C-alpha cells in the first residue's frame, strides 16, 4: 500500500516506513540509543530528500526520547541543572546548525556535508566503542587487571564560572557542558540525530559525570534540542513531513518496547560490540557512496541558486 507524503511530495510504501520505524525502534530499545543516526540515512536510501529526512528525523527522535526519559525521571536519574546548562548550549548550537544547513542547501553541498558528518562521527564513535568493548571483554576474562577510575581530575576542572551539580556530585565550570551542548545541538540540526552518541561519552569522560545520571540527563537535553530543531526546520524551510514522522514514530515506539525486552537477556559488553559494529556498518555504507563513482553524475534540484 502506497502513501503520499504531503511535504516530501513522493509516494512511498506504507509498510516500508512502518518497518524502518520498527527496526530502528527495536535497535534503539535494544541499545538505549535514540536511533536518529539510523533513521536519517535509511530515509536517504529510500529516496526522501536529505533536508526532509533530517528535519523529520529530528521529530522522530523527540518521540523516542520522551518515551525513554519518563522511566529515567521516575528513577531520579536526571540531573536537571546540568540538563538546563546542556540545553542552553544546545539551543544556540541548533539555531546555528539550522542556519548553516540553509546556507549549505543553497550552495548545493548539503548532501555531501551531511554524509561527511555521518562518516566522521559514526566512524569515530564506532571505533572508540568497539575498542572499549574489546578491552572491557578482555579485562572481564582476565581478572586482577588495573581498574580505571571513572572520575579523574583533568584540565576541565581548571576553568572559571564554576557551578554545583548536586545530582552528579560535581563542582565544575559551566563552559564545558555549554560547549558539549552546543556541539550536540549543531549536529541535531544538520544530521537529524539526538546526539546521544556524542553526548554520553563526553559526559562520562570529559565532564566526569556518574554513569547513573548520564542517560537520563542526555535524554532530557535531547528532547528539548530536537523539539527546537524540529520547529526551526518547520519554520525556516517547511521540511518536516508530519505524515512521514507519524509512520516512523508508530513503528518506532512499538519496536522500542520489544527491543528493551530483548536487551535484558544480553550482556552489556556484547551489546556494545554489536552496537559499535552497527554504527561502523552505517558509516562504511555512507563512505562507500562518497568514494565509489555514482551511476548518475548529475543531480537536479528544483529552484534557482540564490
Amino acid at each position, binding site marked *: 500500500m502506497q502513501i*503520499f507524503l504531503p511535504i516530501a511530495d*513522493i509516494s512511498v510504501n506504507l509498510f516500508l516506513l512502518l518497518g524502518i520505524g520498527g527496526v530502528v525502534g527495536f535497535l534503539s530499545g535494544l541499545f538505549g540509543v535514540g536511533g536518529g543516526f539510523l533513521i536519517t540515512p535509511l530515509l536517504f536510501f529510500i529516496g526522501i530528500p536529505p533536508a526532509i529526512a533530517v528535519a523529520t528525523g529530528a521529530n522522530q527522535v523527540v518521540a523516542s526520547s520522551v518515551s525513554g526519559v519518563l522511566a529515567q525521571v521516575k528513577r531520579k536519574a536526571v540531573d536537571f541543572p546540568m540538563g538546563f546548562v546542556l540545553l542552553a548550549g544546545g539551543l544556540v548550537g541548533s539555531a546555528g546548525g539550522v542556519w548553516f544547513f540553509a546556507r549549505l542547501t543553497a550552495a548545493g553541498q548539503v*548532501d555531501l556535508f551531511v554524509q561527511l558528518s555521518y562518516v566522521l562521527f559514526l566512524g569515530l564513535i564506532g571505533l572508540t566503542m568497539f575498542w572499549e568493548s574489546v578491552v572491557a571483554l578482555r579485562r572481564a576474562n582476565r581478572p586482577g587487571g588495573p581498574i580505571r577510575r571513572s572520575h579523574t581530575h583533568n584540565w576541565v576542572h581548571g576553568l572559571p564560572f564554576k557551578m554545583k551539580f548536586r545530582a552528579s556530585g560535581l563542582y565544575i565550570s559551566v563552559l564545558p557542558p555549554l560547549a558539549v551542548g552546543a556541539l550536540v545541538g549543531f549536529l541535531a540540526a544538520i544530521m537529524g540525530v539526538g546526539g546521544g552518541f556524542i553526548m554520553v561519552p563526553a559526559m562520562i569522560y570529559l565532564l566526569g559525570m556518574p554513569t547513573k545520571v548520564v542517560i537520563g540527563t542526555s535524554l532530557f537535553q535531547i528532547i528539548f534540542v530536537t523539539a527546537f530543531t524540529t520547529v526551526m526546520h518547520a519554520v525556516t524551510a517547511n521540511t518536516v513531513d508530519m505524515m512521514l514522522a507519524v509512520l516512523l514514530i508508530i513503528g518506532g515506539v512499538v519496536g522500542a518496547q520489544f527491543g528493551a525486552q530483548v536487551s535484558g537477556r544480553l550482556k552489556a559488553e556484547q551489546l556494545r560490540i554489536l552496537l559499535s559494529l552497527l554504527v561502523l556498518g552505517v558509516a562504511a555504507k555512507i563512505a562507500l557512496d562518497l568514494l565509489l563513482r555514482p551511476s548518475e553524475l548529475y543531480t*537536479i534540484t528544483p529552484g534557482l541558486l540564490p
Partner: protein
Amino acid sequence: MIRAALLWLLSALPALAASEDIVAGLSQNRVSITADFEGSEILIYGAVRRTAPAPPGALHVIITVEGPSTPITVRKKERTAGIWINRESVQIASAPSFYAISTTGHLKDILTETENLRHQITIPRAIRAVGISQQARNAPEFLEALIRVRASDGSYRLNERSVQFTQGTLFRSDVVLPANLTEGLYVVRIFLTRDGQVVDRIERQINVRKEGLERFLFNLSRDQPLIYGLLSLLIAVVAGYGASAAFRLLKR
C-alpha cells in the same frame, strides 16, 4: 446580396476544404492527490471533424501532457580529493515537472523541425534553457542529464505509436500520471498533423490538487509553519508517552 454571399462562400470554400479540426475530451479534468494516491490514468479521446473529403497524406495525432514548470538547477559531481562532490552547476530557466508525449507514429516522420520549433512539442523543446552555454564548459550535457534523470524516474515520457487512430477519424490514448506528481495545472495539447505540418491544435487542462489530509497538512506547513511545527511535536510527545504508558499497562 445573394451574389455577394455566394462569392464569399466560394472564396471561403477552399479554406474550409483544407480545414480539419479536432474535437476531444478527457475522462477527467481534475486529479486529487490524497494520502493513498498511487498515480492516475487519464483517457484522452477525440475525433477529427471534416467539412470536406480528406486531402491526401497520412493524418497523425500528437498528444502532450505538461505539468507545471519550475526553474531547475542541475549539478555535476566530480571526483575531488578522492570523493565525489557537486562542482559545476547550470541553471535552467524553466522545465516542466512532468511531460508525456503520445503519438500515432514516429515523431521525426510526422512532425517537421519548423513545426516543432513553433509549437514546442518534443521534450528538449519544452524545456526553456536560455543562455546556459556561459554557465559551464559542457552546458548541453547538463540539459541531456536533466532529460535523462527525469525520463528514468518516469517524469518525462515519449510513447511513440501509443495513440490508437481508427478509420482516420477517431483517436484515443491513455496517459499515466505517476504517483510523484507536482500539484498544479496540467496542460493537455492535441496536435493534428499531415505531412509534418500541424493542421489543428486544441488545449485542455487537468487540475491536479492535493486533497483532504494532504491539502490540510501542506497548507498548514506553508501558512502557519509555527503551528505546524508545534503540532508535529505534540504528536511526537503524545506518541512517545502513550507508547510507554500502554506497554506498562500490558506488562501488568
